[in-house]
């Protein structure tokens, strides 16, 4: 997982509400469950023995149903809620034992938070909202205005700097919330169901925005969500919480393939796989017939193609740069026309890039009788996706045992 350079390390964190933590801990030690303890003593175990580490630049998603303790967990990281037991380390500093004064300094410099309800100050203009963290930290007006303008520009709201939040739409308001968090240049950004209150379309847009902002950034993001599609889309890793404890931490695909228990498996019911898998994930190069683009003996190619999978060949220039695809009929046509190069035989199937989601591949596959070629961003041939392969992938519904 993560080495010494992890930006946030959470170690054996507990939160016990409404009673003596020690008593709850000893009951937990005896193997009693959360519900049992609540029924016997009235003590609520909010978060139970949670440990994880988040690397710089990582988007770490904490998923769970409501009441699973994910919001409590997030608030213990910046101590909006005091942990009952355990450690939170930020760049090696123990946040959980820090005196109030130091905590305030840390919150001003290192951590920022984005809220589900946006939590903007209605009495402040948009730019003043974006500059809120800087104002609290006492930076001079001109300086914080400049910085607020920069971050508003990053989220595309510079033109609205002088308006008030109540004049903005939900998506725009959350952009302001995002700008407010970015303005303090935090090393850790805590996002509490940040996009859950938005329309599906705007939500996707904001997820893309976050992914874009995270690119080339050293900032860690801890993101709470109850939406698995969202978690799959933005998360580098996902932690799944159940009854206050984490049941599984892994990359989205690994969780999808190897769910730790039935609870995790049930989460994936109805997940849109076409948004999770990318073309590059399922493209296969083994068995693909690669043809040198300089070949002039078209006739000699025919037997090779006839023997190839799907009876097609992939024409590549040096360095596997993808040129096009030929099939047996297109080659025969070219030979009959006495064509001198492969150019005349190329099919009109455009390749898809390895990082496009399967939803884009489906369309390409439906329009073609041949496999869809997949190329890397630099145009190199990665492999191809046949229709059969595509259907097989999508049929892997995780609630069917596999």
């Amino acid at each position, binding site marked *: 997982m993560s080495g010494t350079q992890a930006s946030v390390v959470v170690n054996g964190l507990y939160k016990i509400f409404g009673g003596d933590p020690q008593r709850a801990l000893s009951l937990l030690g005896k193997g009693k469950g959360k519900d049992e303890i609540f029924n016997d003593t009235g003590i609520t175990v909010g978060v139970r023995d949670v440990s994880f580490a988040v690397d710089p630049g990582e988007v770490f998603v904490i998923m769970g149903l409501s009441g699973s303790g994910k919001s409590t967990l997030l*608030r213990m990281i*910046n101590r*909006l809620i005091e942990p009952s037991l355990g450690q939170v380390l930020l760049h090696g500093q123990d946040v959980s034992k820090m005196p109030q004064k130091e905590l*305030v*300094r*840390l*919150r*001003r*410099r290192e*951590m*920022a*938070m984005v*809220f*589900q*309800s946006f*939590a903007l*100050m*209605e*009495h*402040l203009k948009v730019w003043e909202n974006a500059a*809120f*963290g800087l*104002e*609290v*930290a006492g930076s001079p007006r001109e300086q914080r205005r400049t910085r607020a303008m920069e971050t508003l520009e990053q989220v595309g709201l510079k033109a609205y700097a002088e308006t*008030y939040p*109540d004049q903005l739409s939900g998506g725009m308001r959350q952009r302001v919330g995002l700008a*407010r968090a970015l303005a*303090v240049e935090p090393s850790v950004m*805590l996002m509490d169901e940040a996009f859950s209150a938005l329309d599906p379309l705007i939500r996707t847009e904001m997820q893309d925005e976050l992914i874009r902002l995270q690119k080339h950034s050293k900032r860690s993001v801890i993101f709470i969500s109850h939406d698995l599609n969202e978690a799959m889309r933005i998360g580098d890793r996902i932690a799944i919480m159940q009854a206050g404890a984490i049941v599984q931490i892994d990359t989205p695909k690994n969780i999808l393939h190897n769910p730790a228990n039935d609870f995790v498996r049930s989460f994936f019911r109805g997940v849109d796989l076409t948004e999770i898998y990318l073309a590059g994930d399922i493209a296969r190069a083994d068995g693909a017939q690669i043809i040198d683009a300089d070949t002039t003996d078209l006739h000699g190619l025919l037997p090779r193609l006839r023997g190839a999978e799907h009876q097609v060949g992939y024409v590549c220039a040096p360095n596997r740069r993808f040129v096009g695809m030929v099939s047996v009929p297109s080659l025969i046509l070219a030979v009959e026309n006495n064509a001198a190069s492969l150019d005349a035989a190329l099919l009109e199937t455009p390749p898809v890039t390895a990082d496009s989601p399967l939803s884009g591949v489906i369309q390409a596959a439906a329009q073609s009788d041949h496999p869809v070629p997949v190329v890397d961003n630099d145009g190199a041939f990665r492999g191809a996706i046949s229709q059969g392969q595509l259907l097989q992938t999508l049929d892997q519904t995780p609630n069917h045992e596999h």
Partner: protein
Amino acid sequence: MNTEDGRIPIGSAIDSLVEFLLNHFQPLFDVITTGIGSLTNALASALLWVPGWLLTLALAALALWRVGWRFALFTLASLSLLAGMNLWPESINTLALVLAATLVSLAIGLPLGIWAARRDAVDRLVRPVLDFMQTMPAFVYLIPAAMFFGLGRVPGVIATIIFSMPPAVRLTNLGIRQVPKELVEAGQAFGCTPMQLLFKVQIPTAKKSIMAGVNQNIMLALSMVVIASMIGAGGLGKEVLRGIQRLEVGVGFEGGIGVVLLAIILDRITQSFGDTHHRSITQRLKTLFTRNTDSQWTGRP
């Protein structure tokens, strides 16, 4: 002491408490009397020193800025009417009395409301006291007030303070408690100290509720003015009282109309400060000259 007839002697207990306070705390009462007396007198003489027409224009301008041109006209007409009825000094006296009482009420009530919002224990303690202050018939305050502070403006102002303070405390408390939890968390998450949280997040967010408390405070103070005139507080209340005592309906009504007009003006202007309209003066002037459908005055005293 009437214990022999079987009554529980609450009345006599209060009597002896008042007597005890009179005997031992007179210096304190003297300080309060001097303080409130000079505040009220300073306000009254300052307002009377300004020529009537100038004060009228100033209030009309304030009405124009905060509310709209219709209400500015109304303010102009009402104040001219007061002057025309020869009730100008009485009106100013009443205004000074109300302002002094309101200032003191707010100086005590707002911090108390904030404190009660932050500490449940304070809230539990303050709540019944406020209930008591608000429901106890206002006349009852007059007698001890007169005994402690003599006759005249000062006891009138003090009785008014006691009677009018509760809504300011209550609505400040309520407003701050109703600040959304996530806003408070946002303040803390970005590193607010408790004081910054109060002044940068809680009070601005609760402004509407707090201003409603201020407004109610002023309205209650005005309604107390007539009663306070019974112990010589003067002002418009005195006219009303004279009307009652001499059965001169006209005189009573003139004083009453004065109180109502003042109430409407103060109400609308203080209410406008609680509005969450973010319009600057220039924007207001712009709307004023581009369309005349500006905020309609709805006559609510």
